[in-house]
Structure formats: structure tokens, C-alpha cells
């Protein structure tokens, strides 16, 4: 069965390593914070100027001067630091952030990502997404495999305006884990109970199936 949002987040959390500095985008990526293994030290970076994001505050304790990049009220953990936006993007652009997890409208088989604009319709801006995808050492896209209309989001070529080119390394969807390799999307794992046929059907770009594909383990 296809994973729900929390399932995707849970699988992404398995990609974390002790000592990682991680930037989590808005949406599914934010949920990854709930599944960081307890024994692991992972520091979350927020591009509006916070290293060491803590949980949401208790009711009545929200501080308007303490928000994340999604403008939600948060807390700061012990050992956290605050800084200005130029310093924040020095961390990102300078390659000091180990992993970036973000959502996408479309990903192409060469690792291009479109995530910020639907022409004539949605005008929100790219925020920090272009900086993040251009500079992160490792980029994981967290998304559903298909859009609401059931159309594949894993394409031969993106149709929407790009956020970055040839930058995505791994995609974790409700159906599968896939890596971007030279010739297309390489299937790494299947969601529990999801067949390679289903994944093939939901993937418009070239899907590489090499031998027996294991199921995700939780």
C-alpha cells in the first residue's frame, strides 16, 4: 500500500546520520523532524536564521520572534544559535549543510527539479529553494509519486519552471525510493505491498529496475 505523508517522512529519517546538519523544507519534509532516531544527534537548520530548531512551543508560549522558514512558531534547542540571513545562506551555499530535504511539483530523470512556480496561477516565489538545491551536498526530494490528477511527477523532462538543474540525488515517494543515475530513475526500494509494476505505471521517466527490488523496512 502507498505510504501516507508520515510514512514518507519516516523512511526519509532513515537517511539521517549522526552529526548531520539538515535543512527541512515545508510540507512532508518538516514531518521528518518527528522521526529522528533518539540516539542520533541531528541539528536542524532554518534559513531564516536558526540552527537547532526545537519542537513547536506549548500552548500560550509561542514567541513571535521565534519562527521557522515556514513562519510557524517554534522553539530553539539547547546549543542553538541565531544569525542573519546572509550568514544562514553562507551555511547553505558554503556546503556546510549535509542534507536538504524538500518537496517538488516535478522531478526529471536527470535530476532537475521544479517546485516553485505554476505559470499564470501560483505566484509565491522560490524562497530559499534555489539556493538550497544549487549548493547542498545531498538533496532528497520528498513527494507523492503522482499529483492529484494521478499524473506522474517523475518525468522525462520537467514541464514547469525549474528550481535547479541536475541536482536531485534521491527521491522518496509514497511508492518508492529512487536514485537519479545516468540513465534515469533507479528503483531502490518499494513501499510495503507496492509492486514494481505499480511503480512503473506511476513513473513517466525512464525507470531502471535492476534485479529483485526489496521492500522498505520500518
Amino acid at each position, binding site marked *: 500500500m502507498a505510504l501516507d505523508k508520515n510514512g514518507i517522512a519516516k523512511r526519509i529519517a532513515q537517511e539521517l546520520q549522526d552529526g548531520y546538519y539538515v535543512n527541512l523544507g515545508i510540507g512532508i519534509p518538516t514531518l521528518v523532524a518527528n522521526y529522528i532516531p533518539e540516539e542520533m544527534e541531528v541539528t536542524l537548520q*532554518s534559513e531564516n*536564521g536558526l540552527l537547532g530548531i526545537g519542537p513547536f512551543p*506549548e500552548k500560550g508560549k509561542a514567541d513571535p520572534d*521565534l519562527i521557522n522558514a515556514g513562519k510557524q512558531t517554534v522553539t530553539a534547542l539547547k546549543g542553538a544559535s541565531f544569525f542573519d540571513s*546572509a550568514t544562514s545562506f553562507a551555511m547553505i551555499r558554503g556546503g556546510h549543510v549535509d542534507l536538504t530535504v524538500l518537496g517538488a511539483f516535478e522531478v526529471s530523470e536527470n535530476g532537475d527539479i521544479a517546485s516553485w512556480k505554476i505559470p499564470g496561477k501560483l505566484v509565491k516565489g522560490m524562497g530559499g529553494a534555489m539556493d538550497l538545491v544549487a549548493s547542498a551536498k545531498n538533496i532528497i526530494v520528498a513527494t507523492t509519486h503522482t499529483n492529484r490528477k494521478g499524473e506522474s511527477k517523475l518525468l522525462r523532462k520537467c514541464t514547469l519552471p525549474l528550481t535547479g538543474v541536475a541536482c536531485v540525488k534521491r527521491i522518496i515517494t509514497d511508492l518508492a525510493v529512487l536514485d537519479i543515475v545516468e540513465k534515469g530513475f533507479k528503483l531502490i526500494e518499494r513501499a510495503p505491498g507496492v509492486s514494481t509494476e505499480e511503480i512503473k505505471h506511476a513513473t513517466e521517466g525512464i525507470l531502471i529496475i535492476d534485479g529483485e527490488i526489496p521492500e522498505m523496512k520500518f
Partner: protein
Amino acid sequence: MNKVVKNAEEAIQGVKSGMTLMLGGFGLCGIPENSLKALAASGIKNLICISNNAGIDDFGLGVLLRDHQLKKMIASYVGENKEFERQFLSGELEVELNPQGTLAERIRAGGAGIPAFFVPAGYGTEVAEGKEVREFNGKMHLLETALTADFAFVKAKYGDYSGNLIYNNTANNFNNMMASAGKITIAEVEELVPTGELDPNQIHTPGIFVQRIFQGTNYEKRIEFETVS
């Protein structure tokens, strides 16, 4: 030299139609509320505003937008503002969207006297249109130019009569760089203290960057998305 002014009305003296302004803040966090209100009341039009976001419909920069005081916005993320979207799509408002880190660095560079610099963000996207591309260390980069402003408006938690500023938590964001990039920088603070009362070790923005300072009043500090556990 006296940098202290009475209030926002006095602070915005000299702002004129067609000028370029910078406004600190991320979303509604750390925005110069008093100055924004005074600018809205002034009715000054044709402004070019550089700000990461555009406020919300009835607060922050959104009020200037609603009253058609803005000719152009340079920003990185403008969601959460219906009127912005409407004016942008109808062509009433000129908009230049920048990757957030590029925007921050363009402002920092402006204040630091660096006219242009190369960054990888936006290569191969519509942000790259018309920009010089160059390869460094096997990676493609775009030439981006510095930004400065006629007036920069920033907000801090503490300030002293000399213009030294200390921000609170994530309310620093774009304020620190913008303070250095304004020909005239106006700082509004929650608490204004005599020179010498702030610990020099804790200063975020040294007073050299600030030309006018005042203690703001009636801070609303609205929260865009109050999220609790």
C-alpha cells in the same frame, strides 16, 4: 551627532516618491512596524521596495501594497498575500523574485562595497535570464549585482543612542544586512538605551550603519502561523 529621533513620522523625513527602500523582516517576524505605519500614512507612492516578503493583506508591507504605494517589489517569497498575487498577475506591480540567499547576499554586498559576485543558485532557471554565466570549480554560476537603497528600515530589540543594535531570536534575518545597505538607515527598537548601556560584545549591528534611531510603540508582533505542540 544626534541620531535619536522622536518617532516614525520624524524618522521617515526625506522619503520621496520613486525612492528605493529596504525593509527588514522575515514574514511578519522582525518587521519595522512603526516605520511601515508611518510610510502607509504618508501616502508616498511609486516606491521600489526590497524585502524578503510582502507582508499579509492587512499588515506590514501588505498595507502599502493595498494602497497602491508600491511600483516594484524585489523579494524572494510572497505567498500569504492575495493582493500581491492579484497586482502581480494583472501587471500593476512590477516584481523581481530572487533566490533568498542571493537576495541576502546582494544586500550584504551592497553594504560591503562589493558591486557583484557569482553564485550557483538559479543557474539553468528563469532567474538566470540575461545574466552572465561562468564556471568555477566545475560548477556553473550566475553573476549577481549588489543592492543598495535610499532608505533602509530595520527593527531591533535593543538599540542605543549611537545606533548600535541587538536583535532578538529569529527577528534578525534581513535586518542586519539591510542596516549596512541603506544610504540612510532608520532603526526602530523596542528599547532605546543611552550609549554605553549595551554590552559591546553582544552588538549585532554596529552604530556606524545607523543614521536615525527611535523607540517604537505599540508593537503588535503578529504571528502568521501560530503552531503549538
